C-alpha cells in the first residue's frame, strides 16, 4: 500500500518508523477513541495502523521491570498474570468501555489520546510508569507525567511511535487499587477517579503512591497526601481536603462542575484508602 492510499499497516516497528519519518500520519491501534473523535464515517488524513505489529503486543519482564507493548489491549491486561501492584490498572482496564472495547482498545492509545479522563493514567502514575518513544533517530524514555502535557497533548514528536510503557522494578511492590466515579455504573466517562499503590508492612504504610484523574488538565500524583500516610498506621482519616489543595484544577463540564469535583476528590481518596484498611483487617 502506498501513500496515495493514505493507509499503512506495517508488520514491524522499523517499517512503522520509516513511514513516520517520511509522512505526517495519524497513528491508529485499537481505534476505539479515534473514530468517535472524528465524528465522521471514515478517518480523515493518512493513517498508520500499528495493530499488525505483533512484536508490540504483550508483556516483557526483566530485572529492570515490566514493559507493556503498545498494542496490548485492555483484555490482555485483565488476563495477564501481573504483580498485585498492577491491581489498580487491572480494575481500570475493566472500566474502559465494555468488553468489546476492551478487546480492541490499547493502553498506549489511551495515553496518546491524552484525555484528562483517561482511566489508565492514574494507576500508571502510581506505578511510576515511563513511556518508550521510538523514532529513526533512536529511542528515548520519559516519565509518563512528563509525556502528558495537557488535554489531548503529549510530548510525542510527529516522527515518534509510543512503543511501550515501562514499569520500573522499584514500583512493583505493594497492592494497587482504582476507584472511579461516574454518573452511572457502566460505560461511563469518569467525573473523577483515583488510583493508589501502597506498601503496608506490619500495619504501617511504608510506601504510598496516590494519583487523581479528571480533576485537572492531566492526571496528577498527590505527594502531600502520600507524605501524610507514610510511616503511619493505615487510616483513611489521615487525609483531608488540605492534602489535595494545589493539585486539583478541575473544570465545569457536562459531567460535573468544578466545585463538585473538588469535593469528591477528597472523598474518593478516603474511600480508596478504606479498601486497604478493610483488606488489612480482613
Amino acid at each position, binding site marked *: 500500500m502506498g501513500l496515495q492510499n493514505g493507509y499503512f499497516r506495517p508488520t514491524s516497528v522499523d517499517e512503522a518508523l520509516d513511514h513516520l519519518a517520511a509522512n505526517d500520519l495519524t497513528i491508529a491501534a485499537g481505534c476505539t477513541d479515534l473514530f*468517535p473523535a472524528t465524528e465522521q464515517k471514515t478517518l480523515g488524513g493518512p*493513517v498508520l*495502523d500499528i495493530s499488525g505489529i505483533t512484536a508490540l503486543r504483550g508483556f516483557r519482564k526483566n530485572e529492570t521491570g515490566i514493559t507493556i507493548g503498545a498494542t496490548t489491549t485492555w483484555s490482555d491486561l485483565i488476563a495477564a498474570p501481573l504483580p498485585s501492584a498492577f491491581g489498580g490498572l487491572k480494575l481500570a482496564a475493566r472500566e474502559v468501555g*465494555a*468488553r468489546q472495547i476492551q*478487546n*480492541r482498545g490499547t493502553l498506549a492509545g489511551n495515553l496518546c489520546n491524552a484525555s484528562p479522563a483517561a482511566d489508565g493514567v492514574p494507576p500508571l502514575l502510581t506505578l511510576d510508569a515511563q513511556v518508550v518513544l521510538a523514532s529513526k533517530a533512536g529511542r528515548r524514555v520519559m516519565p509518563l507525567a512528563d509525556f502528558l502535557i495537557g488535554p489531548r497533548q503529549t510530548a510525542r514528536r510527529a516522527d515518534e511511535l509510543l512503543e511501550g510503557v515501562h514499569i520500573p522494578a522499584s514500583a512493583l511492590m505493594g497492592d494497587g487499587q482504582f476507584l472511579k466515579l461516574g454518573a452511572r455504573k457502566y460505560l461511563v466517562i469518569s467525573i473523577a477517579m483515583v488510583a493508589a499503590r501502597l506498601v503496608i508492612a506490619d500495619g504501617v504504610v511504608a510506601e504510598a503512591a496516590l494519583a487523581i484523574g479528571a480533576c485537572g488538565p492531566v492526571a496528577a500524583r498527590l505527594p502531600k497526601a502520600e507524605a501524610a500516610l507514610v510511616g503511619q498506621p493505615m487510616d483513611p482519616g489521615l487525609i483531608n481536603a488540605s492534602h489535595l489543595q494545589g493539585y486539583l484544577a478541575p473544570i465545569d463540564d457536562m459531567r460535573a462542575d468544578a466545585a463538585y469535583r473538588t469535593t469528591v476528590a477528597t472523598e474518593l481518596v478516603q474511600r480508596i484508602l478504606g479498601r486497604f484498611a478493610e483488606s488489612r483487617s480482613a
Partner: protein
Amino acid sequence: MSTVSMTVNGKVVASVVEDRTLLVDFIREHLRLTGTHVGCDTSQCGACVVHVNGKAMKSCTMLAAAADGADVTTIEGVANGDLHPMQKAFNDNHGLQCGFCTPGMIMSGIDMVNRYKAEGKTLDEAAIRAELEGNICRCTGYHNIVKSIQQAAGEM
C-alpha cells in the same frame, strides 16, 4: 484502495475497499450481510458486535483492513442448520422488542457464555447484567434478554 481478505462465517471473502472502510460497512455494504446493525456509530450501543478471531468486538470501531486475515463471525453465521441455542433462547423468552439490538445482544451473549465456560466461572444473573454493559436496548427490554442468556448458558 486496498484488497482485504478474511474469513466471514466460514467463507473466504476478498474485496477491494477504500482503505478506511469500517469493518461494519464492509460486512453490510460489500458482503450485504445486513444482520449486523449500526445503532450509534460511536462504539457505545453494541448493535454492531461481531466476533473477530473468537472475540466480541464492535465492528463500527474497527477498520476492515485491520481484520485482514481474520476469522469473522456475524449473526448470519451462528446457526448451524438449526438455530444456535442463544438464538433459540431469545425466541423462547421473547428476548426482544423492536429487535434492532438483538444481533449484537446475541453475539455478546455467545461471547460471554463461551468466556465464562472457558474460565470455569458461573454466569449468573448479576454477571450477565454486568457483562451486558456494552449493549444497549432502547426498548429497555433487558429483563427477557437476561433470561434468554441465562437459558442459553445452561444449554451451550
